[in-house]
């Protein structure tokens, strides 16, 4: 407990970086580096003369230079259209991170509220919530996404928003909703009988007031631990769906659709078109999970000596 309060005295950034193993610190720094890239990505091209690496227009093909292997000019080579893979891998960070963030926040937020509500009301509300969770979770994640695209495929309901991206975000939300519902509910269920909740009820605080003022703060730790994991998961789902041509349409840069673009080239040995975007996924997932990985305990349950 002492360490917790000690950490609270430091700033947020200090808590993120200090007091962890070297590996965790590296993973977290890597994550912030990727976020930085995602933020500045649109301006990179304008300032390319200042950068230590060669940046190209991610959408302007070079028809005389398709499927070129990595070189000083094209660090990660070019794809079938002659687009620069390195630039596109950088640009895709923005798309993948943003969609994952929106999707998880939307689905996770609703899941948290529903979970808190289920824990507060118990009884049939809780029962219904659990059944919903079970139903949604009995669909394999990618098939759920596939079904979403099948169902919403020809509906024009998102107005000016890009259709593919909107369905991607909805799919991510759909996957995250039960995860957060379940987690929050299991944390809060023991609290519903707790004295402070009873006191709040007596004080005339409404149901939503209790959920908002007492439940959500109590579940915050769990939610914060789940968040980076589910974002990492969401990045994989987005890439997976794009890999089968759903969501983000080429030539917009996105890791999954870039891998798809290079998939058939692999058997001919043109590995760079697929391998680099995939490596970017691995790095982002790995760096994100660095935020909830608990360090292994020094003395594990080694059992009795015999």
């Amino acid at each position, binding site marked *: 407990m002492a360490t917790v309060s000690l950490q609270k005295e430091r700033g947020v950034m200090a808590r993120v970086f200090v007091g962890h193993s070297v590996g965790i610190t590296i993973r977290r720094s890597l994550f912030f580096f990727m976020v930085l890239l995602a933020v500045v990505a649109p301006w990179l091209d304008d300032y390319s003369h200042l950068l230590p690496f060669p940046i190209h227009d991610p959408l302007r093909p070079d028809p005389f230079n398709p499927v070129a292997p990595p070189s000083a000019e094209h660090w990660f080579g070019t794809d079938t259209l002659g687009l620069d893979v390195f630039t596109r891998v950088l640009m895709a960070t923005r798309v993948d991170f943003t969609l994952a963030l929106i999707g998880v926040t939307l689905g996770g937020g609703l899941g948290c509220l529903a979970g808190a509500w289920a824990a507060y009301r118990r009884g049939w509300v809780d029962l219904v919530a659990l*059944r919903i969770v*079970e*139903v949604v979770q*009995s*669909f*394999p*994640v*990618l*098939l*759920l996404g*596939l*079904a979403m*695209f*099948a*169902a*919403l*495929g*020809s*509906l024009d309901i998102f107005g000016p928003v890009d259709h593919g991206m909107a369905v991607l975000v909805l799919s991510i939300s759909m996957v995250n909703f039960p995860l957060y519902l379940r987690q929050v509910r299991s944390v809060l269920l023991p609290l519903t009988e707790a004295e402070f909740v009873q006191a709040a009820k007596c004080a005339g605080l409404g149901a939503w007031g209790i959920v908002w003022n007492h439940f959500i703060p109590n579940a915050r730790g769990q939610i914060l631990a789940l968040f980076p994991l589910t974002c*990492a998961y969401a990045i*994989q789902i987005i*890439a*997976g769906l794009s*890999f*089968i*041509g*759903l969501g983000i349409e080429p030539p917009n840069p996105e890791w*999954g659709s870039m*891998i798809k673009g*290079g*998939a058939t080239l*692999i*058997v*001919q*040995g043109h*590995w760079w078109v*697929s*391998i680099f975007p*995939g490596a970017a*996924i*691995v790095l982002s*997932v*790995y760096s994100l*999970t660095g935020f909830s990985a608990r360090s*292994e*305990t020094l003395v*594990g*349950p*080694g*059992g*009795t000596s*015999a």
Partner: protein
Amino acid sequence: MFLANRVVILAVVLFAVVVIGFTITRSTGTPLYASLGVAVSEAIIEQRAEEMGLNEPIVVQFWTYATHLLLGDLGVSRISRIPVAEDIALKLPATAEMVFFTLVVSFIWAIPLGVRAGLRPNGKLAKLGEGMSQFGVSVPAFWLGLLFIFLLYFLPPRIPEPLGPLPNLFPPPLGRLGSVDPPEMVTGFYTVDALIAGDFRLAWQALWHLILPALTLSLTSGPPLFRVTRSAVSEALASPFVEAAYSYGLRRRQVLIRDVLRNASPPVLNLAAMTFGYLIGGGVLVEVVFSWPGIGSYAVWGMDNSDYDVVLGVVIIAAVIYVILYFIVDLIQFAMDPRLRD
């Protein structure tokens, strides 16, 4: 009591799956235009709508849909004109075989490493297992498949002298047998069917084609198995009855098998069965990468052709298989754990 509860849950989930399937079918925009094309007259559309029962009240439509579904009617593919159920029946064994061998591979690495990591949490093998699971959860399965194809299929024959050129280590990623004729269908598992036909060469071929997809799926779906095994073993190891068993002078081997592994196995088997059920529909991308003719590839094919009955058929079948496996897992649990039997 426990089982009765489970049956109810099974029924509720199945019902919900059907409802969702129905809703999605009805909401797929304009199924009529989709199946007839745009250039048809109002009258033909109206006639077709009548034929398809689209003018009936929604409840009747649902009833028709549900009863058809229960009778195994998942609609007809509008591209191939083959009933979806027939196609799925043909392709399901391919998926099942791949998933089965995935679990075989996982049982070779994830569970032994998990046991070892549970027994010796600071040992080298524990670190290896942890490293492999870290890698497995970070890597997208479809990309790992491509990486394997490059490293293990493409690269080896191109190794320069004196080592190369080597023969291809693995077959090209072109499905279950490449261009060879499949064995006569009995179980639908090519390995098993080839053995039944007495053709060991063919069985070996089938197995050879299975290795890379199974390895890919196992590395990405195995980490939870590793972790659950590790924690189940270490939890069992730390329990008082294990210390008691040692104090009665039982041999370490006997305590590990009789007490530790026995008590650790229910959650592990549980997860293994769930993984199987999940991968039936969850291996879609790996099927695509290896051109594996399973239900995942079928669903993607349907998606590419806006053939939504195909997509929904696969989604529903995968969900139903998952839910039924969930139920079977409970039955196994029930049989294994004396505490649940009361």
